[in-house]
């Protein structure tokens, strides 16, 4: 339990870090996962490794703030700085345990859209896949991170940049990719798991009104007890140690 206040995104980083198990190889991309890996490897997962699609392999935190995976503190004292095909080959062989993904839209099966969204009559172009499609197809499991905003939760994403689970309970039956698909969704208000390919509520962040939070979804979200996954819990607050580390890795709170 934290003895001081924390930002919602600091809790998201803590919750995302908890998804990395000790010994995991984690595929890390942009934004909050950059901080989450550093937190995990500094606390409960000292034997985890991070691979970055730019070609970086790390076994510890960067000694300095990073905007991107290629900032010099992330290259300095890395285990390896190589190329993308080396990293993507590990992913394609099935050697990456967990990958992180974000999205402008997500549906109940964990399909993600980072390519183009509709706003009324307008279509808004977003930056695109980057490596997200590859991670979604081929990581052992994926963890989705996004701000909790109702416009992001949709019945059907406008564009499947990163495929999730099949809509008929057949797991990854919608395509033959080797990865296990979405395993968790962490928003700024709650965490969710996936069972039979569909999202369910796992925990609610401290101080969040559960019913109002669930009303942000256009469908009735299943909850853990409804599918025999135990009670809906309260998401653990970041500990003092975690907060200190997060603020070391992101001293000006740029990402958090």
């Amino acid at each position, binding site marked *: 339990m934290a003895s001081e206040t924390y930002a919602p995104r600091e809790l998201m980083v803590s919750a995302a870090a908890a998804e990395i198990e000790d010994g995991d190889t984690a595929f890390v991309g942009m934004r909050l996962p950059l901080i989450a890996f550093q937190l995990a490897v500094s606390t409960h997962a000292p034997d985890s490794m991070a691979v970055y*699609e730019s070609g970086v392999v790390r076994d510890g935190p960067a000694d300095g703030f990073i905007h991107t995976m*290629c900032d010099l503190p992330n290259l300095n004292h890395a285990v390896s700085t190589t190329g993308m095909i080396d990293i993507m080959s590990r992913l394609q062989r099935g050697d990456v345990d967990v990958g992180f993904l974000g999205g402008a839209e997500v549906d109940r099966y964990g399909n993600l859209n980072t390519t183009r969204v509709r706003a009324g009559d307008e279509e808004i172009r977003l930056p695109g896949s980057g490596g997200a499609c*590859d991670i979604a197809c081929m990581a052992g499991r994926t963890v989705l991170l996004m701000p909790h905003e109702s416009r992001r939760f949709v019945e059907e994403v406008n564009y499947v940049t990163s495929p999730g689970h099949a809509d008929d309970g057949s797991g990854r039956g919608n395509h033959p990719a080797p990865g296990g698909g979405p395993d968790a969704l962490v928003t700024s208000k709650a965490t969710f798991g996936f069972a039979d390919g569909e999202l369910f509520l796992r925990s609610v962040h401290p101080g969040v009104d559960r019913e109002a939070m669930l009303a942000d979804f256009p469908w009735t979200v299943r909850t853990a007890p409804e599918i025999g996954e135990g009670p809906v819990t309260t998401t653990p607050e970041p500990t003092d140690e975690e907060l200190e580390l997060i603020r070391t890795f992101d001293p000006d709170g740029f990402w958090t």
Partner: protein
Amino acid sequence: MSTEPSETLSDAVSRIPSGSSVATGLALEHAIPFAAGHELVRQGTDDLTLIGPISDLLFDQLIGCGAVSRVRAAWVGNVSAGTGYRFREAVENDGIDVENHSNFSVALALRAGALGVPYLPTRSLLGSDVFAESDLFERGTDPFGGEEVALVPAIEPDWTIVHAQRASPEGDVHLWGNTGIVDPAVGAAENVLVTAEEVVEPAVIHSDPSRTAITREQVSAVVECPWGAHPSPVAGHYNRDNEYYLRYHGATDTQAAFDEWAGEWVYGVEDREEYMGLVDADLSITEPTVAAEVRYGQ
């Protein structure tokens, strides 16, 4: 094509004609050849097809300058801030043609080009709209094991532009730090332009051959260009200019605002030396790491 050692950047870039396909920004956020990109637009080179994985700003700038007809890439924007407004507006107004890729599909397309094979298979893409909406990729079946795979056809750029730490006048190049898809893009290209922080004696290259990323027969032009990747970082030379990316995001949300920005940072300077007069951030390496000695010998 023979190498013309240590040309000026202006001369080297003048060899890239309008209408060319150009792969660049290949090390992702690291060592992006911004100087060469800006020189392209100063010379009025346009109708370009840009090829790349994640482009951290350079593609957005070239699009804003009206130099681009087509983009074949996985991601175009600003890694610090998200949206690249010039890319976004160009797509929304049908100003450019976009071929959506994933990072791995661009990498494999260039690898196929480098290998001299027509396509490569992958277990990625299937199930996504990157695949489903594409005219490029095909579905295939592994003739040995029967697995369904996506087939990615080769891409062979007319030009690949790379920024590196050092090169000999002959065109042998040392590049370190992460390299993204530099290697396949160099192998697939018809011509390669290298900008380097330093042009060095050939003996420097020969002293550490395992660090040689590109050899001369692949290279059409070598240019010494200190700070040629600013605002992106270059391992051992300078850090990323994070504030630049944030200021750019705030200053380019309309075409008129972008034009004002480009008037100062691209068209308002003659060369990289004058450009660096605009940069006030201290990007110096404060904690140099010197690699353990590597011995070859005989």
